[in-house]
């Protein structure tokens, strides 16, 4: 699981309560006060001591499920080589920026691993599954607007981030829905029902109570696919 913010907290909780035991949590960030109202494993003490998010989520997972064996890596995913992708069966993306998503997307693809990506903005959420070598990957659904903001980080809190815009902070009910859909996809994989995986993008609009699947077709010019041999 890459990213241990609002989405990462919920995904980790759902994974271990669903029976997943071996979970590696990668996040380079530390807990801050503004994380606390939407991250179930974080406390004021964690914020005061600036505890690494990955470590805190790993501790929380152990407390929830004593049989679980989480490990924490406090590091930027972009600084990690391809081995970590090969060493895992499923990659769960709980990231807050497009550059990291592209890194995880391409590495998962080349390692032949299923990548379940979640994203949120206020009441809006999206889940996409990349299932190599079939179908579209995350990058196939991106365009020039993604390139322009690729290196910016979107806040799960609205504070203590690089990218300051008048955006809604992560909203816990949206987080719950998106994390549940992501973990449901992971459960399909481990229960032998890859045939039921999301083939397109799942969009959720909590204000209008709409959820729908929107087709994202494979882009023949996508660098992820064109470089595959």
């Amino acid at each position, binding site marked *: 699981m890459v990213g241990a*913010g609002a*989405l990462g907290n919920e995904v980790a909780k759902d994974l271990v309560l669903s029976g997943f035991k071996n979970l590696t949590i990668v996040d380079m960030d530390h807990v801050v006060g503004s994380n606390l109202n939407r991250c179930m494993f974080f406390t004021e003490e964690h914020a005061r001591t600036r505890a690494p998010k990955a470590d805190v989520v790993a501790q929380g997972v152990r407390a929830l499920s004593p049989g679980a064996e989480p490990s924490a890596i406090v590091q930027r995913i972009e600084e990690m080589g391809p081995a970590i992708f090969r060493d895992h069966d499923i990659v769960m993306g709980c*990231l807050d920026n497009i550059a990291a998503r592209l890194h995880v997307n391409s590495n998962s693809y080349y390692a032949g691993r299923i990548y379940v990506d979640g994203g949120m903005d206020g009441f809006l959420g999206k889940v996409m599954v990349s299932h190599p070598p079939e179908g579209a990957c995350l990058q196939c659904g991106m365009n020039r607007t*993604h390139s322009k903001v690729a290196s910016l980080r979107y806040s799960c809190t609205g504070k203590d981030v690089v990218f300051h815009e008048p955006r809604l902070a992560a909203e816990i009910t949206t987080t719950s829905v998106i994390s549940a859909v992501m973990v449901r996809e992971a459960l399909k994989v481990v229960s032998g029902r890859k045939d039921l995986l999301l083939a397109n993008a799942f969009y959720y609009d909590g204000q209008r109570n709409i959820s729908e*699947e929107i087709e994202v077709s494979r882009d023949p010019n996508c660098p992820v696919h064109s470089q595959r041999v």
Partner: protein
Amino acid sequence: MKNAETGAAVEMELEGENTIDEVIESAATFWNKDMGAYVLRKGKKVLRGGSSLSDSGIRAEDVLELIPDPEGG
């Protein structure tokens, strides 16, 4: 063109060689959208950024919708 966030709509005069990227940026500018990632959909399909309108099969009177692509975590 519809704005998925507000429900607003506007007619756009476009040429077949205009790309989806160009249309997205024009619509985002028109509606003063925050900097961020957006996609354009026609019905249940996300349109590919680098493709032209004609290659994407877009015709006069088609309704396209600009939707934000949520990237927070």
